[in-house]
């Protein structure tokens, strides 16, 4: 995708872009601007979640349903995938192709594990009675984490694409920028999860609904 928006970048022997006015890579500038745009996207959803926090009229409420230990594990998995990503980039940039490929596919696997956790969580919530249609908490929770999951899915697909490129040898040290922007995207998805984990899970996991609300599952 962005890997092939195709611009006329000319690099010196150190892989630095030298034909733009700022000396910055077009693709990287595009990706950072896009991430700025995505800040507003997730910011709006997180703000919506916070506005509706503790305003569901019926249960289940976060305290009834959120499972901190499991989500901590999936958070840890996503953090480690970020670490794998930065290692992959480091190795590709050094020209150590095999290590690079290994770490790219590690990111893919860790991302997929994170997604499996999310699928499990969504399934589980559905079984115990929280769907996007149940209450405001369900609506805001599922749409926010679901769209984050969609971002992760997109990142996984992108990295699979780049991983095969690395095997075939079309992703190399001299165009490691393609991996770098995918990495920026991936890390951004990770920091969004850092915020979501804090806001939805850690901060509001003890919420029992508005005063006088209908009791939840308990």
């Amino acid at each position, binding site marked *: 995708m962005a890997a092939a928006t195709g611009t006329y970048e000319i690099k010196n022997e150190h892989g630095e872009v030298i034909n733009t006015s*700022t*000396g*910055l890579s077009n693709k*990287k*500038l595009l990706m*950072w*601007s896009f*991430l*700025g*745009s995505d*800040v*507003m996207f997730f*910011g*709006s959803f*997180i*703000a919506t979640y*916070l*506005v509706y926090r503790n305003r569901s009229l019926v249960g289940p409420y976060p305290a009834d349903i959120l499972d*901190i*230990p499991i989500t*901590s594990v999936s*958070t*840890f998995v996503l*953090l*480690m995938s*970020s*670490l794998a*990503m*930065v*290692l992959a980039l*480091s*190795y590709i*940039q050094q020209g150590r192709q095999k290590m690079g490929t290994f770490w790219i596919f590690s990111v893919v696997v860790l991302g997929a594990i994170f997604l499996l956790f999310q699928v499990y969580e969504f399934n589980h919530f559905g079984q115990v009675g929280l769907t996007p249609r149940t209450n405001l908490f369900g609506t805001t929770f599922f749409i926010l984490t679901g769209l984050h999951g969609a971002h992760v899915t997109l990142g996984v697909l992108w990295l699979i694409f780049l991983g095969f490129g690395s095997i075939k040898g079309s992703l190399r040290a001299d165009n490691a920028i393609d991996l770098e922007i995918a*990495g*920026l995207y991936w*890390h*951004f998805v*990770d*920091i969004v999860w*850092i*915020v979501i*984990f*804090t806001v939805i899970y*850690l*901060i509001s*996991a003890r919420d029992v609904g508005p005063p006088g609300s209908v009791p939840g599952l308990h």
Partner: protein
Amino acid sequence: MSNFWNKLLYHEGRGWWDLPRTQWQDPNPQMEGPFGHGIAPIKRTWEIITAANYHHGTPWFYVLIGAILSIITIVEVWAFTWETLGGLLIPLMLVLSIAKFILVVGFFMHLKFDRKYYAWIFTACMIIGIGIFVALLLLLEYGNQTQQ
């Protein structure tokens, strides 16, 4: 940055705003900052911690950052189970997650090593985003009389 505004405001200027030359137009003004030289030791410590003199992190450096991130996550989950925190929970969680955020953005996304341009872009977007959404939350929390 100051150079940029200098250029923008005084670029080969000739007009009614052509004010007398002031000290801040000097090409290399003394950068004292609000605390004078008082923060030099802190700055030095920060530089040592963040490996500021390296242009790229080594793999082991990234592993170290990953370990710090994991530790912070563990602390978060542990603090969450700590019932006595009470009202301190939310500020503590915010501080810890901001720390994680900065570590990932600064080192994994290379903002610390990279050209400052990228950092400005991202920071500017974060400032506008945080500014308007905090304002929105305040408005809906305290301003909205129709909710009562």
